[in-house]
């Protein structure tokens, strides 16, 4: 994993104590698109399952992840696709 992905994974573990977490760098699929740059780590997908999401709406789940990763989203990360599941789902 790259440095940005490492930082994102660490922050997500601290914030949500997830049961499952994948931080996937999909930058290569966006080669040449807006926000892409050489070296990757611009476009990510996060798959996360956490009890913290049980009973929480989709919008609020994403808002909480966006808040946890606010520094990355304001900086190196151009796009973040989120697949967020509650532990009970």
């Amino acid at each position, binding site marked *: 994993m790259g440095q940005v992905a490492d930082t994102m994974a660490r922050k997500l573990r601290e914030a949500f104590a997830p049961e499952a977490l994948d931080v996937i760098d999909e930058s290569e699929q966006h080669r040449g698109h807006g926000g892409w740059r050489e070296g990757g780590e611009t476009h990510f997908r996060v798959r996360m399952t956490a009890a913290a999401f049980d009973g929480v709406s*989709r919008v609020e789940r994403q*808002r909480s992840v966006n808040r946890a990763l606010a520094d990355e989203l304001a900086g190196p990360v151009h*796009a973040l696709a989120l*697949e967020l599941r509650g532990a009970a789902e």
Partner: protein
Amino acid sequence: MTDAAHEQIKADIAANDVVLFMKGTRTMPQCGFSSRVTQILTFMGIDFKDVNVLADAALRDGVKTFSDWPTIPQLYVKGEFVGGCDIITEMTLSGELDQLLADKGVTFDKTAADKIREANAQA
């Protein structure tokens, strides 16, 4: 961000049942994520107003603060924020979008929605 932008957004979502804040227009989307949501809404026969945030920098920033949502596109139904590209895609495939539209009294083509789900089940 200006109050004028927020007032404009409030007026748009009050005057139209379905509003998509997007990059580009429904006929000429300027971003893959905006394009995908436009295609879903169009295919499902949903009457929506497209608001091009690229045409107005204050609006582009304003809609992010208004919705507490950092990305474009953003979909509103009957004045309520529904989500961005990921959420709309998931809700389309799960049938939750049909339910939401039905609950809100927004007309859509159920057969077309089923076709999207069929096509994605085979993929």
